[in-house]
């Protein structure tokens, strides 16, 4: 995918200049908040509670030490990792099965299934916040499985939220994997699942990575459901980060340091996997 398109003609000057100016402005727009976040996280408190200054009066790593004791950040971190990790794994597995069925088989109800699943992406989250909460509580009362307040409930929720996109992406990607490959595997004596895992899945790795990244990011960043469905022990970062602003003084340097710390895993993962992501989208979603 990195094979760059090179125009047969050298681009004209007007284009080059426009491009230069545009990209400079855009980089500035993108970078300023990132710079503010990084620099403020290294400033002493008096720098961030007074008039804004571009350059810190002194550098300190104090905020990075304090954030762990001001709120139980480590615990929130672990919660977020478990919730986002499990939701991602679940979403990928469920989506692979479903997409394989839709991509490779024709069966009654296929259209109803895809359309219904995909249209759930239109639902405003607020519509089923309270109902879902009630449902979890009732399931808990009836079966003893604690969904509400537990990580399990949140995992199920996020897993399902990301399914429609994941299924849609993977149908597109599986469709692009030549059918002859799995037929050959079937001839070789693999069952349909063997064909799926030995042939189709390996060929669809970029698509699967793209789906996984999307699912992880969604679960990592969600605020609304996390604020209602978690308690002290299961609180995720999205909610826990607000703990810094409940203090009497607003420790902006700590807030910025904590924001940065919680962003690093997703941003690093995302940027490392961006090649897969573009490849996955190219072959799957936008084809």
């Amino acid at each position: 995918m990195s094979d760059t398109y090179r125009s047969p003609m050298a681009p004209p000057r007007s284009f080059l200049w426009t491009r230069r100016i545009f990209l400079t402005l855009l980089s500035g727009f993108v970078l300023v908040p990132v710079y503010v976040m990084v620099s403020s996280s290294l400033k002493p408190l008096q720098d961030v509670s007074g008039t804004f200054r571009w350059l810190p009066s002194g550098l300190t790593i104090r905020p990075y030490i304090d954030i762990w004791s001001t709120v139980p950040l480590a615990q929130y971190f672990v919660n977020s990792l478990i919730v986002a990790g499990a939701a991602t794994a679940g979403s990928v597995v469920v989506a692979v099965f479903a997409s394989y069925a839709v991509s490779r088989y024709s069966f009654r109800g296929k259209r109803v299934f895809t359309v219904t699943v995909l249209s759930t992406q239109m639902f405003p989250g607020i519509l089923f916040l309270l109902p879902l909460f009630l449902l979890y509580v009732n399931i808990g009362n009836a079966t003893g499985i604690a969904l509400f307040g537990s990580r399990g409930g949140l995992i199920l929720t996020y897993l399902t939220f990301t399914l429609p996109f994941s299924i849609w992406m993977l149908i597109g990607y599986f469709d692009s994997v030549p059918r002859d490959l799995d037929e050959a595997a079937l001839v070789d004596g693999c069952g349909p699942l063997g064909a799926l895992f030995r042939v189709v899945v390996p060929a669809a790795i970029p698509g699967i990575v793209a789906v996984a990244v999307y699912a992880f990011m969604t679960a990592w960043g969600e605020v609304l459901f996390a604020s209602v469905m978690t308690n002290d022990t299961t609180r995720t970062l999205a909610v826990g980060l607000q703990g810094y602003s409940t203090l009497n003084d607003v420790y902006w340097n700590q807030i910025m340091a904590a924001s940065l710390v919680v962003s690093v895993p997703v941003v690093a993962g995302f940027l490392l996997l961006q090649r897969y992501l573009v490849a996955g989208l190219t072959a799957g979603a936008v084809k």
Partner: protein
Amino acid sequence: MRSIRAAAVGAVTLSLALTVSACGGGTPTGGGSNDSPKTLTYWASNQGAGIEIDKKVLQPELDKFEKQTGIKVKLEVVPWNDLLNRILTATTSGQGPDVLNIGNTWSASLQATGALLPWDEKNFAAIGGKDRFVDSALGSTGAPGKDPAAVPLYSMAYGLYYNKKIFAEAGISEPPATWAELIADGKKIQAQGKQALGAEGASLNENVHHVFVFAKQHGADFFTADGKPDFTSDKVVAAVKQYVDLMAEDKVVPPGNAEYAQNQSVSDFAKGRTAMLLWQTASANLKSQGMNPDDYGVAPVPVQSGTPGSGTRINSMVAGVNVAVFNNTHNLDGAKQFVKFLTSDEEQKILNKAFSSIPPVKSAQADPAFNTPETAVLKNTLATSAAALPQVPSESQFETTVGTAVKELFADAAAGRAVTTESVKAKLLKAQQQMPAK
């Protein structure tokens, strides 16, 4: 259009599901039980300088309770931002804590949901009787004529905090006793290049607390005697306008305060940027921000004229936190025991000292720790010149709608737009129309 046809099929399937599923939900249980006598869950409100600090204060006390009774208390300190939502969802689902803290102004609203154990004579007797508590605190535990929905735990009142050094620099010898004096002093302070008065302009709660007091001083109420909202009477409008005018007209509140909602005004005061602050029991708060107790004084909140008292000389709301028992508790006896523990003289002293609040229990108030100059002022305010916010079921909505109206008026004032009697009345009318019809 294939997809549309398919969507139609999907919609039909859904509506089928709708008719089929007769939708179970809600909570069948009525009163509490004693199914799990050895554990309790306690939701504490955030009283100290941070969640973690509260935990450190409360945990040793809970351990003490466990030693006394063998009941283990699971503590969760819930931020104010989330507390009401958490209580609401707990109410809807029946899954919640056994014992919880509520803002005392929510008492009547939560009472109406039936989620909280009513404190009748018998229940009160179990914790030592109603007489142990101060009257003003009991006035904020539920609608009049009904059994209280909660028991007073921490009491607070508003005071005028002023920076002694700035006052001296501006040549002010005594804290202002009336609003006119406050404005005049404010001008002197501003002449010294300092900010006069801080306000939390985007905080709905703070706004409501202040305009409630101003309304009292104008001899008006936000609710009629039979509990109907009445936000647009001339007196209420004048009261709200007087508060917003501190920024709009008198300009003693800096415009930047219009967007404050995270206690920035307290920080400003602690850092010596503003000379005055109207706050409830701020000392622990100021101390955690490194302000020396000798650097500030506390005076009663100003009145229109004369000295604070009852009627139009009210100068604070009855602020505080109540403790309630959730009706769905599985440890009813344990929950009552725990409330008794929290309201015992000893715990009242320990906890109220730690949170710099005032014990609503008479015998605990006698402790010398609550006779410092600051606490004396606040205690006196509570006893003589504080009024409870309206104890009506729609109190919670009142805080939201009127708080929002004042926030928007502050935003207008900050942007330099005129705040007139008409504009105040229009905002309040809108607020009143958004109150529940029933």
